[in-house]
C-alpha cells in the first residue's frame, strides 16, 4: 500500500482458496458500493488486493466462471483482510443466497418493524432528509410547502405527537425548533432507523406510534467535507463538516455547520388560489408565493478524547442554531398572509461519556444537555392581502381589516423562552453471550416563560410560568437462541410526568389589591411494555413480530397551551395509549445470475385510545374561539406495507414500495348504544394509500476512467382522500376531495475519478404536476437543483 495512512482510504486484501486450501488463480473479484466499483483478479498464489476504498458497505462478488459467491462486508477505518474458502461442489452457478452482515440488516432483523435508511447515496445529491423519509415504506411526510415549511410524520397511520424524532437517541426537540432534520446534512448521517409502532427501550421517550432515530457518523478520521447546493426559488443549502484528530494524542475536534435559504416563491394555482374582489367574487390566478422565505443556520461543535483508559469517548459540545420562517397561510391555502413569521434560536450545551467493558460485559453511556431556546411568533399586519401580495380593497377602495386584527388571529409578538435540561443514561450488560440486559433512563425538565409585547402592560404582568418534568425509564432483555436463529427482545417502560403552573392573580387583602401566585401541580405515571421477536426460518427468510402497549404523555403545548396557535392549556389531560402490533417477514436477497431480489412486508394494527384531540365546541356558552385538547378519540389503524428491491449486475437498482393504512374512527356507540354513523370510517385529512418507485442506474468510466455516473428516477403516488368524514358517498362531497397525485423526480450525479468531487443535478416534479399536503396545500412544481460536494482528506 505504501501510502499515507491519514488519507482516509483503505485497502482490502486476502486470498481465495478452495476447500483443500489450494489457491484459486484468476477468480474475478468485484468490490462494489453505491459509489464505486472495483474489479480485481486473484493472482497465482490466490491473493488479491484492492486499495483506494473509503469506509462503507461493500458487496464482494467472487466469480470463478463455474462458481459465484457474494459477501457483504463493512469496511471501517482500517485496512481489511478477507479470505475466501470456496467449496465449488456446494454451489453451482445458480440461485445463490446473499448473506447479510450489514448494520442495516442486523437492525432490521432484530424483530422490530424497522426500516434502516442508508444515506450515503443521498448525501451526494440534492435530497432533503425529509424527502428520503417520505420515500420510505410506511412513512408519509406531510410538508405543507417548500424548504422549511412545517413537517408532520405519519408512520403507519399515527402522526403528530405520536411520532418522536431522535438524534443519536436524544429527542430532536431538545435542540429547538431552529434545528430540524433539514439542519442535518445527509453527509453527517450514518443511517436513519424508522421504528414503526413498537419502539425499543433504548429510545426512552413516550413515542406512541413510532420513532425516527437519526444515527450520526462516528468516524474520527481527519477530513473536511463541504457541499453547496443551489436551485430553483433561490434555494441555497451549504454544509460543511470536519474532524481533526491530534497526532499522538487522543484529542479530537469536530465541527459542522449548515446554512439553508429559500424564497419558496414557487407558483401556485388551482381552486384555492384566487383573489377576492371587493364584491366577494373570485378572480382565479396563478401566483407566486410571496411570504414564505426561510432561512436557518447553525453550527455544531464537539471536542473531547477517545480511547482513554476510563472512557471510550468523553466530549463536550455546543450547538447554536437560528431560524427565520415566513408563514404564507394557515392550515389551508385559501387566505394568503403577509408579514406573519417566526424566529427561533437555540443554544445547546452537552456532555457525553461512553465506556464499554467497565467490568467485562458492562457498557455505559451518559449524555447531559442544557438547552436554552427562544421562539417568537410575529403577526401584526392588520390588512387582508391577495395572492399578488397586494392589499385587498373593499367596496370604497379602502383596505380591509383582517377579521381578527392580524393575519392569523389577534396581533401578537409572542416570545416563548424555554430552559430545558435533559439527562440520558444507558447501561448494557451481557449476561451470557448473546444475552443482554439494558437499562435506560431519560430525564427532561422544561421551564417555560412567555410574553407578548402586543398585549397591554397590564396583561403582560400576569403572564404565567410553566414547568414540566418527565422521567422515562426502561428495562430491556435481548436474547439470542438456536444459533442466533431466534432473537427475542422484551422491555418495560415507566413513564412519569409532573407539571407545575404558576399564575399571578389579584387578590383583595386588607382592602387593597395585591398580586399573589396561584400554584398548581399534578403528576401522572404509567407503565408500558412490549417485545419483539425474529425467527430465521431458513437463511434468507426471517419472520418478525413485535407488540407494545405504548404510551404518550400530554405534550407541553397540549398541557400549557399555545396562544399563537389558539390552543388553550388543559392540565387535566391523561396519556394517550395505543396497543400496537406488527407481523412481517423479509425474504432474500436471492441472487440468480446477475439478478438480485429481496422482498419484505409488514402488517400492522394500532388500537389507540384516549387520543388527544382538539375539543370541539357545542355548548352555547363557550364564547371563545380557542380550544383545548381533550382525551376523547379512539382510532384503529390496520394496514400493511411492502417493499421490493431488485438489482441487476450492481448497475440497476429498482425499489418499489406500497403502503396502505386505514385509520378509522373506533368509538363505536353513542350514549344510547347505537352504532355511530362514522364508526369505522376513514379519518379525514389523511392519505391512506401511497406508493413509491425508485430507480437507480450506474454507469462506470463515462468521460473519465474510474468515474461513476448515477441516474435516478422516483415516482411517488398518493391516492385521493377527503377533508371531511365520508360515511357514504353523497352528492356534494367532491368539493372536499384531495385528488390523486403523481409526482416524478429525476436526477443525475457524477463522481470524478479522484472521488473528492461529486456533482449532481436534480429535477423535482418533472411534469409540474400539482402535489398537495393533507389539507390541499400545494407543494412546489418543477424545480432544478445543482449540488457540489467536495471532500478533503489530506491534512
Amino acid at each position: 500500500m505504501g501510502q499515507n495512512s491519514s488519507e482516509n482510504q483503505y485497502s482490502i486484501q486476502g486470498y481465495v482458496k478452495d476447500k483443500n486450501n489450494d489457491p484459486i488463480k484468476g477468480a474475478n473479484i468485484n468490490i462494489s458500493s453505491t459509489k464505486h466499483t472495483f474489479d480485481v483478479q486473484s493472482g497465482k498464489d490466490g491473493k488479491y488486493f484492492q486499495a483506494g476504498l473509503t469506509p462503507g458497505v461493500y458487496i464482494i462478488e467472487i466469480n470463478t466462471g463455474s462458481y459465484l459467491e457474494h459477501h457483504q462486508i463493512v469496511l471501517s477505518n482500517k485496512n481489511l483482510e478477507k479470505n475466501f474458502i470456496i467449496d465449488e461442489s456446494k454451489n453451482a452457478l445458480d440461485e445463490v443466497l446473499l448473506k447479510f452482515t450489514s448494520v442495516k440488516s442486523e437492525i432490521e432483523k432484530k424483530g422490530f418493524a424497522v426500516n434502516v435508511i442508508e444515506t450515503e447515496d443521498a448525501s451526494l445529491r440534492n435530497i432533503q432528509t425529509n424527502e428520503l423519509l417520505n420515500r420510505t415504506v410506511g412513512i408519509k411526510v406531510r410538508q405543507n410547502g417548500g424548504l422549511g415549511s412545517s413537517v408532520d410524520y405519519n408512520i403507519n397511520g399515527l402522526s403528530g405527537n405520536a411520532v418522536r424524532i431522535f438524534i443519536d437517541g436524544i429527542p430532536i426537540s431538545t435542540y429547538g425548533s431552529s434545528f430540524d432534520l433539514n439542519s442535518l446534512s445527509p453527509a453527517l448521517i450514518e443511517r436513519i432507523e424508522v421504528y414503526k409502532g413498537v419502539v425499543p427501550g433504548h429510545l426512552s421517550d413516550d413515542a406512541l406510534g413510532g420513532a425516527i432515530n437519526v444515527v450520526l457518523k462516528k468516524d474520527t478520521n481527519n477530513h473536511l467535507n463541504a457541499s453547496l447546493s443551489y436551485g430553483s426559488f433561490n434555494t441555497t443549502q451549504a454544509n460543511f463538516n470536519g474532524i481533526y484528530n491530534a497526532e499522538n494524542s487522543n484529542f479530537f475536534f469536530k465541527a459542522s455547520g449548515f446554512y439553508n435559504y429559500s424564497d419558496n416563491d414557487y407558483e401556485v394555482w388551482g381552486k384555492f388560489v384566487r383573489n377576492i374582489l371587493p364584491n366577494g367574487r373570485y378572480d382565479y390566478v396563478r401566483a407566486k408565493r410571496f411570504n414564505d422565505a426561510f432561512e436557518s443556520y447553525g453550527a455544531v461543535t464537539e471536542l473531547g478524547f477517545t480511547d482513554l483508559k476510563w472512557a471510550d469517548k468523553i466530549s463536550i459540545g455546543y450547538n447554536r442554531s437560528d431560524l427565520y420562517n415566513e408563514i404564507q397561510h394557515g392550515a389551508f391555502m385559501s387566505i394568503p398572509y403577509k408579514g406573519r413569521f417566526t424566529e427561533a434560536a437555540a443554544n445547546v450545551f452537552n456532555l457525553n461519556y461512553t465506556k464499554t467493558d467497565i467490568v467485562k460485559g458492562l457498557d455505559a453511556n451518559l449524555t447531559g444537555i442544557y438547552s436554552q431556546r427562544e421562539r417568537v411568533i410575529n403577526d401584526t399586519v392588520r390588512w387582508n392581502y391577495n395572492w399578488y401580495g397586494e392589499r385587498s380593497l373593499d367596496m370604497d377602495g379602502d383596505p380591509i381589516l383582517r377579521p381578527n386584527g392580524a393575519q392569523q388571529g389577534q396581533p401578537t409578538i409572542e416570545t416563548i423562552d424555554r430552559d430545558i435540561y435533559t439527562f440520558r443514561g444507558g447501561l448494557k450488560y451481557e449476561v451470557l453471550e448473546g444475552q443482554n440486559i439494558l437499562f435506560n433512563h431519560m430525564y427532561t425538565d422544561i421551564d417555560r416563560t412567555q410574553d407578548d409585547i402586543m398585549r397591554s402592560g397590564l396583561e403582560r404582568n400576569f403572564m404565567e410560568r410553566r414547568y414540566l418534568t418527565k422521567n422515562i425509564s426502561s428495562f430491556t432483555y435481548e436474547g439470542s437462541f438456536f444459533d442466533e436463529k431466534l432473537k427475542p427482545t422484551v422491555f418495560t417502560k415507566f413513564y412519569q410526568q409532573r407539571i407545575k403552573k404558576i399564575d399571578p392573580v389579584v387578590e383583595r387583602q386588607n382592602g387593597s389589591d395585591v398580586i399573589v401566585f396561584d400554584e398548581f401541580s399534578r403528576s401522572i405515571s404509567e407503565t408500558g411494555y412490549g417485545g419483539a421477536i425474529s425467527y430465521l426460518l431458513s437463511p434468507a427468510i426471517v419472520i418478525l413480530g413485535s407488540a407494545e402497549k405504548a404510551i404518550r404523555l400530554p405534550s407541553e403545548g397540549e398541557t400549557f397551551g399555545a396562544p399563537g396557535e389558539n390552543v388553550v392549556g388543559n392540565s387535566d389531560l391523561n396519556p394517550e395509549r395505543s396497543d400496537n402490533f406488527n407481523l412481517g417477514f423479509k425474504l432474500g436477497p436471492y441472487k440468480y445470475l446477475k439478478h438480485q431480489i429481496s422482498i419484505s412486508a409488514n402488517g400492522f394494527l394500532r388500537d389507540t385510545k384516549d387520543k388527544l384531540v382538539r375539543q370541539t365546541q357545542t355548548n352555547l356558552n363557550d364564547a371563545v374561539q380557542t380550544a383545548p385538547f381533550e382525551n376523547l378519540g379512539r382510532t384503529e389503524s390496520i394496514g400493511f406495507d411492502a417493499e421490493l428491491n431488485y438489482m441487476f449486475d450492481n448497475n440497476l437498482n429498482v425499489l418499489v414500495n406500497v403502503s396502505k393504512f386505514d385509520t378509522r374512527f373506533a368509538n363505536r356507540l353513542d350514549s344510547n348504544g347505537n352504532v355511530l354513523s362514522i364508526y369505522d370510517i376513514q379519518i379525514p385529512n389523511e392519505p391512506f394509500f401511497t406508493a413509491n418507485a425508485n430507480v437507480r442506474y450506474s454507469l462506470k468510466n463515462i468521460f473519465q476512467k474510474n468515474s461513476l455516473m448515477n441516474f435516478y428516477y422516483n415516482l411517488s403516488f398518493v391516492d385521493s382522500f377527503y377533508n371531511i368524514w365520508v360515511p357514504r358517498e353523497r352528492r356534494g362531497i367532491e368539493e372536499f376531495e384531495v385528488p390523486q397525485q403523481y409526482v416524478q423526480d429525476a436526477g443525475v450525479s457524477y463522481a470524478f475519478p479522484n472521488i473528492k468531487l461529486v456533482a449532481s443535478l436534480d429535477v423535482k416534479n418533472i411534469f409540474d404536476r400539482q402535489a398537495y399536503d393533507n389539507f390541499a396545500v400545494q407543494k412546489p412544481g418543477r424545480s432544478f437543483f445543482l449540488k457540489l460536494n467536495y471532500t478533503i482528506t489530506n491534512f
Partner: protein
Amino acid sequence: MKRNFIKLFSGLAIVGFSALTVSCSDDDTPGDQGENPNPPSETERWFTVAGGIMDETPGNGNGGTVIYSVSKEDIEDPNHEIRLFENGYQVRSQRTARLQASEDGSTMFNIAYGGDSGGEFSKYLVEGGDEFVPTGGVVNISQYAGTAPRWVKLFDGDQTGVAMNVTSPQVTTDDDGNYLYTRGTATAITIDLQDALISNNNDFEVPLSEEEEAQGFHIFRLDTPVLNEAGDKIIIGTWMRKTDPSTGENDTNDFERLGSKAIVLDYPSLENPQVITSTLGHGDTSGYRSFNSFLAEDGNIYQATQRDPNGSYILRINSDNEYDNSYDFSLDSALGVQGAYVESWRYVGNNIAYVMYRHDGSAPSNFNDGGSSQSFLARVDLSAMTAENVDLPYDADMYFQQYQGFAVYEGNVYVSISSVGQDGHVYIIDAETGEATEGAQLINEPGNHFVGVF
C-alpha cells in the same frame, strides 16, 4: 391481514406502475338507492330538511351539513320517509353550515363555516331530492367577516343578507399601565342575495359609556341583525364580555351584567352606530345560529336574550329604535320555569312566535357528558305575554342548540323534531292554535341530528 398479503403479492407480481393506481374505494354512485329515485318535478312548495353530521363527538354537528328537499305533499305525509343522511346533498361547509332559505323555499343560501371554504356564500336552486343546483356564482365574505362568519337574511323579500364580525377585542391601558378599556373593531357587510354580490361594507368601533368600559365591559360579538319598519336602520344583537381591569384578562368570575344591549346602524349605509340598552333584560342578544330578532306587524322589533341571569326575556324595540322598557316579558314567568334560555325562535305573524328553549330544570342529555340538556318548543303570544309548550314527544336527548330552520307557510310552521341519533318526524304546527300534526318521518343516523326545515 393475510388477505392483505395475498392482495399485496398479486399486486407486486404485476409491478407495473399502473397497478399502483388501483384504489380500494368502491365505485358506488352516490344516493339513489333510497326511497325517492325520481323526485316529483313540480310541487306548490319545496321543503328542505337539513341535518348536522357528527365529528368526533355525537351530536356536535361539526362533521358537515346535509340537505334534502321534498314536496309539500311528501313532507305532510306521515308515511313518507326522509332519509336525509343517506340521500342528501353535502353542503359546502366543513362544519355546520349557516343556512337560510328564500321565503318560497325555492332557493337555499349557505355560508360555509370553517375550513378551506369558510366564508363562501353559495346559492342553490331547490329542485327536489338531492338536486341542488348552484346558481349565481360563489361569493367569499371571509376577508370582511372571517372564515366562520355569522349572518342572517333580512326580511326584505329575499333581497339582502347581513354578516357581522368583531376583531379580537384588545386591552388598552394608559401610560401608567392602568386599565382604560377593551375594544374590537366591528365590520358589517350586506350581501345582495339576488345578484350574489357583496353590496356594501363598513367598519367601526363601538365604544360603550366610559363608566361601563372602566369596569371592563365590551362587545365581543355582533350577530342577528334585523331591519326596522322604516327600513332605515338595522338593529344588531350583541354578546358582551368583561375584562378584569386588575389583570387585563377575561373575567371568568361572577359579575353583575349590564342591561341587554343592541347596536343600531343606519341602513343601507351601515354607518352611525348607536348603542341602546334595556333595563329589563340582562342577557346577550346575539342568538346563536339563526335569527334572534323579528319585526312584527305592530312596527315593533322583538328580540330574545341569552345567558340572562333571570332567564331569557323577549325585549321590544319600538319604531324609534329604542328599547321599550314598559314591555316586560319574562319567559321564566310565562313558562313557569327557572332560567329559560332561548336557543332558537321564529316569529310567525299576528304576534305569535315559536320558541325553542331549555331551562335550569331540563333533563341533562346523555350526550356531551351532560353539557347539553333537553329543549322544548313553546308557542308564545307576544301581545298577551303568554307561552305554552307545544305537545311533542320530548326526550332528554332532544336539544335545539344548533337549530336553524322553521319553515312558515300558509299559517303553518314546519319543524324537524328528533333526538340526537334517533329517528323523528317533521311536525306541522298550526301557527294560530299551536296544534302539532305529525308529518314525514325523519330517518336519522347515530351521532347526527336535524337542524331545521326551510
